[in-house]
């Protein structure tokens, strides 16, 4: 949790920490939120949690980033079928006919 700088901020941080999912649960919820919308109540709690926890916020951003990267690499760029593999394929196709 962030280090509060005054007593009333400390109170808020404590309250939020007590009323939102623990970080361990947050990691599970963050993963699930990538696969479909979560109930509104859960999303509100998660939003509150991010306000006091930079680690979960990073976790969310980094998982999002990984997802974006995965969608961007649908094709293995630059890889080529080796020549001997091509020969093997052609042979297999000839035999089939």
């Amino acid at each position: 949790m962030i280090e509060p700088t005054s007593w009333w901020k400390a109170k808020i941080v404590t309250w939020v920490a007590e009323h939102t999912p623990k970080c361990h649960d947050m990691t599970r919820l963050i993963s699930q939120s990538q696969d479909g919308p979560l109930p509104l109540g859960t999303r509100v709690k998660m939003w509150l949690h991010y306000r006091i926890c930079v680690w979960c916020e990073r976790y969310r951003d980094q998982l999002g980033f990984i997802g974006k990267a995965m969608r961007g690499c649908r094709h293995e760029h630059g890889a080529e079928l080796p020549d001997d593999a091509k020969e093997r394929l052609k042979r297999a196709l000839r035999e089939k006919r």
Partner: protein
Amino acid sequence: MPLAASPERWVDEHGDCLYRYALARVRRPEVAEDLVQDALLAAVRTSDGFAGRASERTWLVGILKNKVCDHFRKLGRETTFTDMEFFSGEPADKFDGDDFWIHERGPVEWKLEGAAALERAEFWQALNSCVSKLPERIAAVFTMREMDDVPSREVCATLGISDANLWVMLHRARMALRQCLELNYFTAP
């Protein structure tokens, strides 16, 4: 119209493209090659079925897609020891007794942000090698969801797993991958 005058031509014209498609998903060159072969042989058997509705390449990729799916389906039938090991290795040492992050062990800020990393070959290498470290079945689930955006229900049906199981697998895959990338790319010296 005798379209398949020379299926061998497919190897020269579409071979690399098909291979890349398979390799991005299964990551093992020998498996990717086998899948391309299976797809082309299947295409020969059904080439009357290709009525020129789509381009030849799209048609072949479609067949290959099914072969990749079959491959994942086979993986679904095997529960391996590595899976079990992977699940038991939950990194509980990252959280304190109250399940909050232990600050020094929680996610660190990734220096190289977004677009910049995506431009770098080293990043793609790291991502690829990190996904390869996942147990095969878990990598399959993760790839289907994240790369091809296959609906969760379909992933479950393909691998014969329950919803709950799918959530756990994806959660653990993402956690492990994030950790691996952080160590091997974002905070690597």
